[in-house]
């Protein structure tokens, strides 16, 4: 059970946070199809940052001295770096979409093409191979273990500690926290209301003195920052600390989760968890033992593993089939803001 929850969270959290980034862009009126590309870029930046700084620095010393606090700060710093660079990268989309009134779908597609090309080009030049890996066993530097919290290495430390403190990443919880904070920001603050207004009726918003251009830049930049960070979290927690110009379609899946969640944070969290659960089942159905009787129920069903792999996508389509009649996208998304239009 602990394993199931952990694995589900590992898949669900990057999806959740990146889907929320989509919400920020779209609620301000910009379709951010580039989530995949920004994630790829963010993953690369994060891994590159660690690759360049990990050896011969305070961080290596901290690892040897088992100074976990410094290591966690190091990880947070890397998340921040990825976020900043993700934001910078997303400016390309914001500039094309807002200042040049370009087609947002095409602009996003361009970034999706640019990110892997750029990343692979530089990985080849830097590492002379097709993927960039943190050196040594770096992902484990950042992994939380129950021994860090004073629990004994052997023996059961209780459900809570085994599930949430052992073999997890702080990044996961930081993402959940950011998710909560941003959801509140979007719904209860003046800024959030204004941002949403720009995605529904920018002309009306403008007439009330809201700077639509600024708001849309804000939406896209927040979106880029979080997607970049989400990319690094993906690379750390599911790609074993490597960047190879690919995030397994997570950016596109996040987009699906966003639509699935009807552009609302709570339903997005639900959708991401559902998707993460099925993804987890797909990855490890043959070692899942839910009731602890030592038998692997799903494995005994003798269903081909690729059927399980297919499930998350099938389920998403089925749920969408039932819900999308009532789905409601932000009214002005994808429409360049033109002051002269009514």
């Amino acid at each position, binding site marked *: 059970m602990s394993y199931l929850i952990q694995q589900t969270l590992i898949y669900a959290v990057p999806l959740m946070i990146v889907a929320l980034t989509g919400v920020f862009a779209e609620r301000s009126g910009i379709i951010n*199809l580039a989530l995949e590309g920004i994630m790829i870029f963010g993953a690369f930046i994060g891994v590159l940052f660690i690759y360049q700084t990990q050896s011969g620095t305070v961080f290596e010393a901290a690892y040897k001295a088992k100074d976990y606090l410094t290591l966690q700060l190091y990880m947070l710093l890397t998340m921040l770096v990825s976020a900043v660079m993700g934001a910078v990268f997303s400016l*390309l989309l914001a500039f*094309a979409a807002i200042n*040049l*009134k*370009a*087609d*947002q*779908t*095409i*602009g996003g*597609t*361009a*970034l999706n*093409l*640019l990110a*892997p*090309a*750029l990343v*692979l*080009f530089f990985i*080849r*030049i830097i590492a002379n191979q097709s993927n960039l890996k943190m050196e040594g066993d770096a992902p484990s530097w950042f992994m939380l273990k129950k021994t860090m919290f004073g629990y004994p290495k052997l023996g059961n430390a209780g459900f809570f500690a085994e599930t949430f403190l052992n073999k997890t990443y702080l990044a996961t919880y930081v993402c959940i926290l950011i998710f909560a904070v941003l959801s509140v920001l979007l719904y209860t603050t003046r800024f959030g209301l204004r941002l949403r207004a720009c995605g529904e009726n920018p002309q009306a918003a403008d007439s009330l003195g809201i700077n639509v251009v600024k708001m849309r830049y804000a939406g896209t930049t927040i979106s880029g920052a979080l997607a970049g960070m989400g990319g690094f979290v993906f690379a750390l927690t599911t790609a074993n600390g490597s960047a190879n110009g*690919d995030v*397994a*379609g997570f950016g*596109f*899946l996040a*987009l*699906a989760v966003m*639509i*699935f969640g009807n552009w609302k944070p709570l339903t997005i969290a639900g959708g991401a968890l559902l998707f993460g659960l099925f993804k987890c089942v797909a990855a490890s159905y043959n070692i899942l033992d839910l009731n602890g009787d030592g038998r692997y129920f799903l494995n005994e069903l003798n269903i*081909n593993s*690729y*059927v399980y*792999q*297919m499930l998350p*996508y*099938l389920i*998403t*389509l089925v749920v*969408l*089939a039932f819900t*999308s*009649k009532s*789905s409601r996208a932000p009214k002005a998304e994808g429409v360049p803001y033109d002051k002269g239009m009514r």
Partner: protein
Amino acid sequence: MAEMNEKSYSRLERRRTVGASLISILIGLVTGSLLILIVGLTTKNIGLSGAWEGIRLVFGGLFSTGRDMATGVLTFGFNPNTFGNMLFRSTPLILTGLAVAVAFRTGLFNIGAPGQYLMGICVALLISLSIPSSQVSPVIIWFLAFLGGMLAGGLWGAISGALKAFLNINEVIACIMTNWIAANLVTLIFSGSNLRNLTENTKSAYIYKTSVNNVATAKLGLDKIFSDSQVNGGILIAILLAILISVLLNRTVFGFELRATGSNRYAARYAGIVDKRSIVLSMVIAGAMAGAAGALYGLSGNTEFYWSTYQSLPGVGFNGIPVALLASNSPIAVIFTGMFMAMLDISGQQLKNLTGYNEYLTNIIISVIVYLSAFSLVIRNFLVKHDDGVSRALSSLGNSLRGNKRKGAGK
């Protein structure tokens, strides 16, 4: 007279479109060259001379004939091998480009070409390897396999189209989901099959080449012109299909219905067009094109399909998007942009083989071109707005001249 104006106007429009695309391409190539220069100057073992070689390959990779053995200087000239391979690689690109373009004209963003492509290649391989060529003529098997691949792609596209038309599911999401479902389905189909290459022990991740069963796309003499390249008759099929799609879209009632649905779905419905049917059929055609791309690639006889594809989607499916965008979704223009992209692909290979750079540089160039094409429409509209006065003056001048002539004839 009104007809004449319309014609000259559309000619003007076309010229602007082509102009905008050419400008985008040029800027893309220059950006790539700048990147080469910067990387060359900052990387120890490349330097300025290496950068200059890289830039020449970016622009003229198609004409590269390698290095002179004695002097080590890059040589250029007509290279039948790279030309033939360019044509071979452009075949699937043209077809996936068509898959994206047709859907675009109906107002749909078909990001599902990778899945449709996979279904096409899967069914084509199943048919071409399962029917023994000792009993059925290989030509018949080839046609069955090709049509089967097209049909599979079409049906796969129909799923996304139907979800969009009847259940209002965003086609981008439907396409993404069906892509991954297709990737898993194809892996599922081949995972237990005896079509896997189990005779060569390093090749079990691949399906047998279709030439094992004597099935392969006819070369049609192209291999004589472009010696020792992979080219085959597939390129002619791709061009033929592009022309057919162009006629269908621009010269038939059905094509008009598709385009009308794309311009404004609700207005089209008001005019009596069954918009839902247009959406589904457009995706069927799009899927069939992507399926044909997969089928032709699989049936070439010398390609091997990596069947365990459940974690990755074929890039050629996604590359249909830039091909279509660069062609402004015109089927005829797709032929040329597909070849252009294949040419860049070849340049990338030459960069990798001959210099310290790698093939991803050309992907960067492509993405820059797509980025520019996002607002090439904007640039064009700007041009239209500003030379409106000029063209109005010209056309009124033309009208008055023609009017005078007619008056003269009347006398």
